[in-house]
Structures are given as structure tokens and as C-alpha cells.
């Protein structure tokens, strides 16, 4: 079963890359952007067919490795 996780920076953490992307977008004429925050996306195929167990497994991966909870939040966004 495939489970996806999105890792985003917490609100008060500086994101210089997001800022540069925002400025570039602005320079390209996309003037309606308020803010850009860059994150990470993972697609994980787990050997587990029960959706709840699969999600719990990926949540545990997020807590232990995929996200650093000092600066990042994680969200399990879809189960296929």
C-alpha cells in the first residue's frame, strides 16, 4: 500500500529557499504571491494492506527520521 507524507517547515522557522523562490516568482510577474514555503514530499510503498496500520507505520517513520520535529511538521496526506 502506498502512503504519502508531506513535511513542511514550522511557521516561525526561516525558509531562505522559499523566500528566494517567492522573489523569483515575483520577478517573473507572479505578483499575487503572499509567501512561499518549501517542503518535502515522500511516497512510501509499505508491505501493509491495512490502511490504518500503514498510516501508523509512516507516521512513526516521520517522527523518527523523515521529519525533524524541532523545525518541521508532517502530514500523512493520502492512502491508496
Amino acid at each position, binding site marked *: 500500500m502506498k502512503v504519502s507524507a508531506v513535511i513542511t517547515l514550522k511557521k516561525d522557522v*526561516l525558509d531562505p529557499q522559499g523566500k528566494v523562490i517567492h522573489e523569483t516568482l515575483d520577478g517573473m510577474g507572479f505578483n499575487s504571491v503572499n509567501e512561499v514555503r518549501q517542503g518535502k514530499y515522500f511516497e512510501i510503498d509499505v508491505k501493509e494492506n491495512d490502511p490504518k496500520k500503514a498510516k501508523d507505520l509512516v507516521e512513526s517513520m516521520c517522527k523518527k*527520521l523523515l521529519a*525533524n520535529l524541532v523545525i518541521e511538521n508532517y502530514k500523512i496526506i493520502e492512502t491508496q
Partner: protein
Amino acid sequence: MKSSVITFPGSNCDRDMDVALSKFGFKNKMVWHNDQELPKSDLIVLPGGFSYGDYLRCGSMASKSKIMHSVINFAKSGGLVMGICNGFQILVESGLVPGVLLRNKYLQFICKNVHVKVDNEENSFFKNLDKKVLEFHIAHNEGNYFCTSDQLKEIEDNNQIAIYYCDKNGNTNDQTNPNGSIKNIAGIFNKEKNVLGMMPHPERMIDESLSGEDGSIFFKNLLNNIK
């Protein structure tokens, strides 16, 4: 005194550290990341480099390697552990020191000499050091020290800040902050002060004709402190 330097896949300052430790009298051993047990040591060093190609987050993969269980146990039992540059990143990822190291504020890899101010002497690393401002080398892309405001309060209350970026006279301000670190923090201790993580490389300043001598001062003093 015995020391061990851990080599991870992608470490590239491990041999420099070996040269530095040996030069000042440590009997050093190199330890592979996949080993499980540490040789008997008075000091463990996690060296600089790009362990696992800095994948995911710098130091995150290395912090989960086999040898780190032993390093964490060694640190928890009071053993001296020092992480330099990527080694500092591995220490924060393993939770041995608080905070994280973010991408440098101005998105540039920084490779230059900096001055750091030693402001903490109740520990084995900087105790009895004659010189309070040292010139070290930095070379990193992710050295921007960050922690939550609660963590910062705790760190300050426990006197855990080891060194600050400064100018040659010891002034700390925005101009002397190369990477955007909170409070100009260049190095930090755990609560018990037996674990030190710092971005600057003392092992690159051990030869007057090549670089400078402030690393020599640091290593000589370290050896004397733990003898």
C-alpha cells in the same frame, strides 16, 4: 589519552582530525560507522564532511547508524564527545545536543576563517584556555543554528552556549555572524557539558605555516584537561 574518530560514508575531515589528535598526543583509532562497539576511549569525535551526501537533512542518516547507539550510550554515561561541522549536525539529529542547523541565511556555502569567542569554561573542552578569542576555519552550507524560544531559554539558563561567532576583538553582532545563527551561536553543549557540537574546524588550524595555531592551542588544552 585515547580517542576515536568515527568515519561515516561521506566523512572527509576524519583523517585531518586523526592527524590533529595524534599530533598533540592522543592515541587515536579510526572507527567505521557500521561497527557496533567503540574501542576504549576518553574522547569520541564525529568529524566533518558530507555523511550520506547530506541526503534528507544533514546528519540525519548518520545519526541512525549502528555505531551511534554506542556513541549515545558513551555520552549518556558521561564520556566526552565532540562533533565538528557535519559531526555537529549528527549530534543535533541524534538529540545529544539541542536545536538544529538550518541552511545558511544567505544560501551560500561559506568557506573562510572566523573568530569565535569562548564564553564558557566550566567544561573539559575550554577549561583553562588562555586565549578567549580563537581563529578557526568554517566550511559549511548548513550551519545556521536554530532552536525554539523555549529551548533557547533552557540553553541560556543552563549555560550551554560554548562559543559565539565574533570579530578578532570578541565583539558579537550581525556583521560577525556568517550564517544567521541565533545569538551568533557557533557551538553548543549538552546539559552536562560532556558533549560539544561546533561548526568551526579546530583541526584545520594546527600548523602555523599552513593556516594558524589556534587549533593547536585548543587541542593542547583539551589534552591537558582530560589527562
